């Protein structure tokens, strides 16, 4: 097969192209730095393909429109950054409880509030997990290269469809605005998963009754299947319930449909890990600095390695446990005050020494900074 021609692409461009390759056919959003390019590209590409693009009045309505479109059978996406992500939290919970597949891209910038609009940060990691109220499962993916922006966006759509859940792609300003040379796969090489539809006739249809998969077959609205969609906890027919014998199985199924697939959802990339004495556990743009530190450190004879987290939630517990076992030390660099190092410490369970390396000055962590830190803590 002919190798596709390499192009110089920005992270945000790769996210948009990934969405289109995955079959995205609805976008509603409100432009915001540093995610605006995604909205801009989708506003150009979707109408050209005959699909709707809507610039909404705000981010609350943006996610609301995506939920409606998705229930009508569209593969919907929105893209935002910190302040918009905060506004979307309410509807994100609605999508989780009503089991609406959609993709939400949040390109992290300095926060809270307006913060540092044009600077990089990784402060929304825990918000992506816990930002909406109530306990719920979450799937959050985090790219570090332009190529991964494409791949993980496709994956986000596939997982949203497969598990009937909102999936968050958590980018950051550096990765979103960075340009790299990439050769994207041809459209026919991209695996695309579509949500399952009911096979029973409309009269027999019970929307939230599931087979062994725990994942309901929600009919696309307008196909003749009637059902009730609500943000209240609901029974198999979709109507509100407070009965413990219905509420408890409801939550069990909501979590179970994700947690039984944990091993598929734990995405990591190991770099020079085999004989490493000190391991960096990093994600997003920070993984780039960590990998450079490993390269430079190894040139000086230091046995360094890195585990890059491509999925942040569910937290990739097993690969992290393996990466910690037998090491002298683990260092977790991140552009916040310790949102993932806290998780690493949680699963560490006394295996090794885990140190955080938080930075919040609007700039990237540098490889030198990491190597200097190692010298200090030796």
């Amino acid at each position: 097969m002919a190798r596709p021609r390499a192009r110089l692409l920005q992270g945000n461009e790769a996210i948009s192209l990934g969405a289109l390759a995955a079959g995205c056919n609805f976008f509603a959003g409100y432009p915001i730095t540093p995610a605006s390019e995604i909205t801009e590209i989708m506003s150009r590409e979707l109408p050209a393909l005959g699909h709707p693009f809507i610039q909404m009045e705000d981010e609350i309505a943006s996610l609301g429109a995506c939920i409606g479109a998705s229930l009508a059978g569209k593969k919907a996406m929105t893209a935002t950054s910190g302040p918009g992500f905060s506004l979307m939290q309410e509807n994100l919970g609605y999508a989780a409880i009503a089991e609406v597949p959609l993709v939400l891209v949040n390109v992290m910038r300095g926060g809270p509030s307006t913060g540092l609009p044009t600077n990089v940060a990784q402060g929304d990691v825990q918000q992506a997990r816990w930002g909406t109220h109530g306990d719920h499962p979450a799937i959050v993916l985090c790219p570090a290269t332009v190529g991964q922006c494409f791949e993980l966006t496709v994956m986000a759509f596939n997982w949203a469809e497969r598990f009937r859940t909102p999936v968050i792609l958590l980018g950051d300003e550096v990765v979103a605005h960075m340009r790299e040379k990439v050769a994207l796969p041809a459209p026919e090489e991209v695996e695309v998963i579509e949500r399952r539809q009911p096979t029973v006739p409309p009269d027999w249809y019970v929307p939230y009754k599931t087979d062994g998969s725990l994942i309901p077959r929600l009919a696309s609205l307008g196909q003749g299947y009637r059902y009730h969609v609500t943000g209240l906890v609901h029974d198999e027919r979709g109507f509100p319930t407070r009965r413990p014998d219905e509420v408890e199985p409801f939550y069990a199924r909501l979590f179970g449909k994700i947690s039984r697939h944990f091993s598929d959802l734990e995405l990591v990339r190991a770099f020079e890990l085999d004989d490493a004495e000190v391991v960096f556990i990093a994600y997003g743009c920070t993984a780039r600095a960590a990998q450079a530190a490993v390269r430079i450190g190894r040139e000086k004879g230091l046995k360094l390695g890195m585990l890059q987290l491509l999925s942040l939630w569910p937290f990739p517990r097993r690969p992290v446990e393996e990466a910690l076992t037998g090491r002298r030390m683990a260092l977790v660099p991140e552009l916040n005050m310790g949102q993932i190092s806290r998780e690493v410490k949680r699963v560490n369970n006394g295996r090794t020494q885990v140190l955080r390396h938080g930075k919040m000055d609007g700039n990237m962590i540098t490889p030198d900074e990491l190597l200097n830190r190692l010298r200090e803590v030796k």
Partner: protein
Amino acid sequence: MNQKESPSLGRVEVRLAGSGGQGLLLAGLVLAEAAGLHDGREVAMVQSYGPEARGGASKAEVIISDAAIDYPLCSRVDLFLALTQEAADAYSWDLKPGAWTLVDSDLVKHPPTSRALRLPFTAVAREKLKKPMVANVVALGALAEVTGVVSRRGLEKALLARVPPGTEPLNKKALSLGARMAREYLGQDASQPQPEAHSEDI
């Protein structure tokens, strides 16, 4: 000059800095596409700008490398272009000793190093081409000529693919004007750093 097989470079960190509106992001994009798509190198480019729409310090950083690029930003700059004094002051603190440094001789009165190549990019664009807006392209031409980090042919191809239709002759002229300026400057002053003088021994 034969550019078919690009000479080995290692990792070269390029920073193009100036004020918003001087076309440095476009210059960075053209440089990255030339090196990445035409010379066959690995490239990464990042840009940095403030919240203002125009003005303010702006910079583009391009990493050109023979190997896959891990860290996509500059940490020890090998090649620095500054088109304003503010940018020359703000973004020169992490230059590698002996780094190639090019400044606009009219707009940067105090270059960060005495070894900087001072060339009147903007004045030449204004006087010879009647278009001060192509100062960025003149500077690219000079930069390629002095450093050899990117092939002239690749640069020209990448440039012509990026500029608005109808401006190709102007941009081509600006590129060769920049290259000629640099050649003449180097010819008259042999004490300036040459591409060979640059090494990884720092």
